[in-house]
């Protein structure tokens, strides 16, 4: 009794209302299953056979509102009704999804997808699936011929695991009442925030937006799996940007991920945050340019979360170990110490929130219909596991529910809710003291505190060094006497194994960074949580600059152009 009550509370707290979900009443699932069974019966007898077939149907709604400089730029809403078909031709041992060598075509081979009519009329709905299935089957057979030829002619890859392992059959239905969305009340709030950017000579561009995406995903496959799961992403975001006379671009931003409109920040908090970002942008615009240096460094909360994601997270995606083109940094290292023994890294898509904030990386079943589950990837520095989809790698024959993708792409093992924890933590203030002590110990002129890491890249291809270069969007030089100075124009660079072994301490300030990550299976929402991390040293180098100066004239609202 007590347990039941607790479950109800959790569902309410997660946002929308959980509605009864009777599998028999789910028309899309019923029709999809009907057409899939009818098609698969014939397709599995073709030569080569289609040995596995899955249908995914995404039914939802999208809202977006974007403003800048006291004006609305975008205000729109759409419904989504998209069908996707994945056909696998050949056999689990070798199928059409096998990575080709010396060919680039299959890097982003799309899944067959199309907009479909409402399932209320079965004829229109079913004929769309029929046409899409035909296309998917034809393409799969054609791709398989190419794969077979490629396998015969090209050098063998080290990992000879099968291309596919059948996902376990699942039957799950979760309906969530979609929340009514009215962005009109937020228009004035965003406009008021946008007005804060006017008259600031250091602001070259700005944007303020709210996006809402909510609906349900239906999945059926030829193994008999039937799933219906909800999704809901609500986000308020802003960015203010500038550019120095030397072409160096700077920016500050704010992102609020919530589960419902009521959870968006209050207007007072939003305005205060924007004001703070503007002050930071101004400070950056006047800051001296940093110079390349190798020194003790703290990556603070959000920066540490981005660092874990970019530098180690991608290398834990299992499919990479099958690609001959991938650097496979962690290949053959299971059971070995690969990073600092202080650190444990887990992935847990079943987690719904962190400190009251929803996790974008949460889901119940992955895009291959496999139930999500927590995985310990690295424990006290020792490699234990990989993020797995339904494509085995040596030593890891099964999916752990991380096959993910953007609509229109094929699933690959991707991150979900990635969390780095430390076996020993100290309060952040203590971590800064340790940094200063380390600077002095090493006799360095200064060290760094990186508050925010932005875009960048992690190279994982064998043709390039296994390195990373991440833009330090807000970084302080910290002198041996504890004095701090903001500098601009630095990137954090290095190689993964070296840098992760340089972690010598961690804070107790676990911080969440929600984002979307782009790779060959497209953009997927994910979450990263990490404490502040102290590195014995990290290398900084110069950021790439824009070729263009800021505009010749100041912004019109700065100069005092005619008012309306």
């Amino acid at each position, binding site marked *: 009794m007590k347990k039941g009550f607790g479950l109800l509370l959790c569902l309410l707290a997660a946002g929308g209302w959980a509605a009864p979900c009777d599998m028999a009443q789910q028309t899309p699932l019923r029709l999809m299953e009907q057409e899939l069974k009818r098609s698969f019966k014939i397709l599995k007898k073709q030569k080569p056979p289609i040995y596995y077939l899955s249908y995914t149907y995404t039914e939802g709604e999208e809202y977006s509102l974007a403003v800048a400089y006291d004006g609305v730029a975008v205000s729109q809403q759409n419904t989504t009704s998209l069908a996707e078909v994945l056909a696998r031709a050949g056999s689990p041992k070798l199928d059409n999804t096998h990575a080709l060598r010396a060919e680039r075509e299959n890097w982003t081979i799309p899944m067959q997808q199309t907009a479909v009519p409402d399932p209320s009329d079965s004829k229109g709905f079913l004929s769309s699936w029929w046409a899409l299935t*035909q296309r998917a089957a034809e393409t799969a057979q054609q791709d398989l011929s190419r794969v077979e030829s490629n396998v015969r002619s090209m050098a063998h890859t080290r990992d000879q695991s099968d291309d596919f392992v059948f996902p376990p059959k699942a039957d799950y239905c979760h309906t969530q009442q979609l929340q009514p969305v009215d962005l009109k009340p937020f228009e004035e709030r965003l406009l008021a925030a946008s007005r804060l950017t006017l008259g600031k000579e250091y602001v070259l561009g700005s944007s303020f937006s709210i996006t809402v995406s909510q609906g349900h995903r239906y999945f059926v496959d030829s193994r008999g799996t039937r799933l219906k799961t909800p999704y809901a992403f609500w986000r308020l975001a802003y960015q203010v940007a500038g550019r120095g006379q030397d072409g160096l671009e700077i920016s500050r931003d704010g992102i609020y991920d919530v589960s419902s409109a009521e959870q968006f920040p209050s207007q007072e908090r939003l305005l205060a945050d924007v004001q703070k970002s503007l002050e930071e942008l101004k400070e950056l615009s006047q800051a001296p340019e940093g110079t390349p240096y190798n020194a003790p460094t703290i990556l603070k909360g959000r920066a540490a979360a981005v660092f874990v994601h970019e530098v180690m997270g991608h290398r834990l995606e299992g499919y990479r170990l099958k690609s001959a083109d991938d650097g496979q940094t962690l290949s053959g290292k299971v059971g070995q110490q690969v990073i600092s023994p202080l650190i444990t890294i887990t992935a847990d898509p079943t987690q719904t929130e962190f400190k009251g904030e929803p996790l974008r990386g949460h889901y119940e079943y992955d895009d291959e219909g496999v139930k999500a589950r927590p995985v310990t990837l690295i424990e006290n520095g020792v490699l234990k596991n990989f993020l797995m989809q339904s494509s085995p790698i040596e030593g890891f024959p099964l999916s752990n529910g991380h096959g993910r993708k953007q609509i229109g792409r094929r699933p690959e093992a991707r991150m979900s809710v990635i969390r780095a924890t430390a076996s020993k933590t100290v309060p952040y203030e203590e971590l800064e003291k340790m940094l200063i002590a380390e600077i002095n110990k090493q006799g360095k002129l200064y060290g760094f505190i990186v508050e925010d890491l932005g875009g960048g890249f992690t190279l994982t291809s064998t043709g390039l060094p296994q390195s990373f270069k991440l833009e330090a969007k807000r970084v302080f030089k910290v002198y041996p006497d504890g004095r701090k100075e903001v500098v601009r124009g630095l990137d954090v660079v290095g190689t993964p194994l070296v840098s992760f072994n340089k972690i010598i301490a961690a804070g107790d300030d676990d911080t969440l960074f929600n984002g979307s990550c782009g790779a060959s299976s497209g953009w997927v929402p994910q979450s990263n949580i990490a404490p502040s991390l102290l590195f014995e040293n990290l290398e900084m180098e110069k950021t790439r600059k824009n070729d263009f100066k800021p505009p010749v004239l100041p912004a019109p609202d700065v100069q005092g152009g005619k008012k309306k």
Partner: protein
Amino acid sequence: MNRYLLPLCILLAGPLTAAPLPENVYFRAMQDEMHRTQKELRVPGNPKPFFTGYKVIATTSQGFAARFGVPVVQSPTPRTNVALQAYVYAGTAKKNSSGFENDAYYYQPDVSSMVPVSYEGLRRVLWRLTDAAYVAAANSYEKKEAYKRRKNITDTTPDFTSAPKSEYVQQIPPFPQLDGAYYQQLVNSLSAMGKQLPFLEAFSTSVLFSQRDLYFLDSEGDFYQYSVLSAQLVLTGSLRNRDGYKESAVENIALAWDQPADLDDLQQKTQTFLDQLQNMYQARKAEPYLGPVLLEPKAAGGFVHQLFIRNANNPKPLLSAQRETDSTVGQFKDKLGMRVISHLLDVYDRPQMSHYQGEPLRGFTPVDDEGVTAEELPLVQSGKLTALPAARSPIEGQKRSNGHARMSDWVYPRAILSNVFVEPKQPLPQEALEERFLDRCRELELEYCYIFPRFPAINGGKGELNFAWRVYTADGHKEPVYGLRLENITTRSLRDVLAAGQESRVSHFTDSLSRLPLSVVTPALLVDEIEILPTQRKPERKPFVSLP
């Protein structure tokens, strides 16, 4: 005395606008940023901005779609997007950056979409665009001068001619409140008609209402403001014909903007389209053919677009340090006074015309994008080329602009036609035209000839047409044919027009270079010789699984 002359000239050159600028946030922002640009935008050592043009395109649209009777992806509310285009010519009227293809930049205006609609937002975006356009123009100016020195180009013709002040103002109507339920029901019911043909793999209908509000201002004070309204029903069908070839067809049907659609009429047109899909399904494959072809009005429109308009556009080549020749220039550039089309035809461009027989013309351009009032052009008289579209950059034989400089996101203002009318000197009634066609076929001792309902895009003299009618000379009966590969189609065919019909129809096209809309109004045309070969496309395999 001379001391007074200069101020007087400046006054005369100033904004002696007959009508005031329309009062709205777009013109307020454009005027204020334009003023600042002309007065203050300078980089020491670089040429000044000489001529600047701004255009706002505010597009509002709402659509409804259905497939086989049920709704597909809906946008329940109208959607608006405001885009800005800006261009700057640096230098002077005599020598400026225009007409030079800079290898570091495309020959395109600076563009921004999803612009925030507020005075401050518009000013901010105009400021950024103008700055980028000026930097590009100053760079182009220097490179153009260096190129001219290298090529010893000493022509003293000014780069940019003067033009009288122009303005055009039309009230901008609000986007209509559409009865969404009615239009959704309309597309549902029309698309449900597709269920009668079991071989159709897809059949969809959509209604799209689109209103493009255009606002233009240049640094000489020329301006325009008007709306382009478009409402249309689009029918789309796809099938695999009896030989296994995948075929598809699209039909655009103009709807009245301000009146409810006539359901009976639309059902009849949908049925006609379905009949055509039935014919496509039953069609037989084309065989080699050389002989007369009767182009129905829509096909004649395509023929004129592909062979005449494309060759009359862009008569002034861009200078380029990378290429000796400008491949975008039409072949008719040097053919003024020569016969380019059958002597039976006159051809006009009428940019000021907004409608023809109640249907909107997509090339409507009252004032062009260099601030010049667009003029009607007698392009061809009795088959001879008598005029070409011109912008303010003069060309041989046309020293002033005739208001045809059109700009898009993909190209700075260039001389492009808008609404082209083909007018036969001796139009024949439909029956007489068909009789003339069959007589010519018999004269050539052909078993059959062709009627084209559409004309394909021609590239390198070739084009693929997926449907035509074969007409037998013996008894005049018709058979549907698919897979026609047109060969050796050149401007020669324009001179092979033997006769033309009486009833003109409007066809709409998009210019392949600028992607600007244009319309062609033409009757049916009888062309003496077109070469046809069977398509080299291969049929598709039969579907693994039958239709549900």
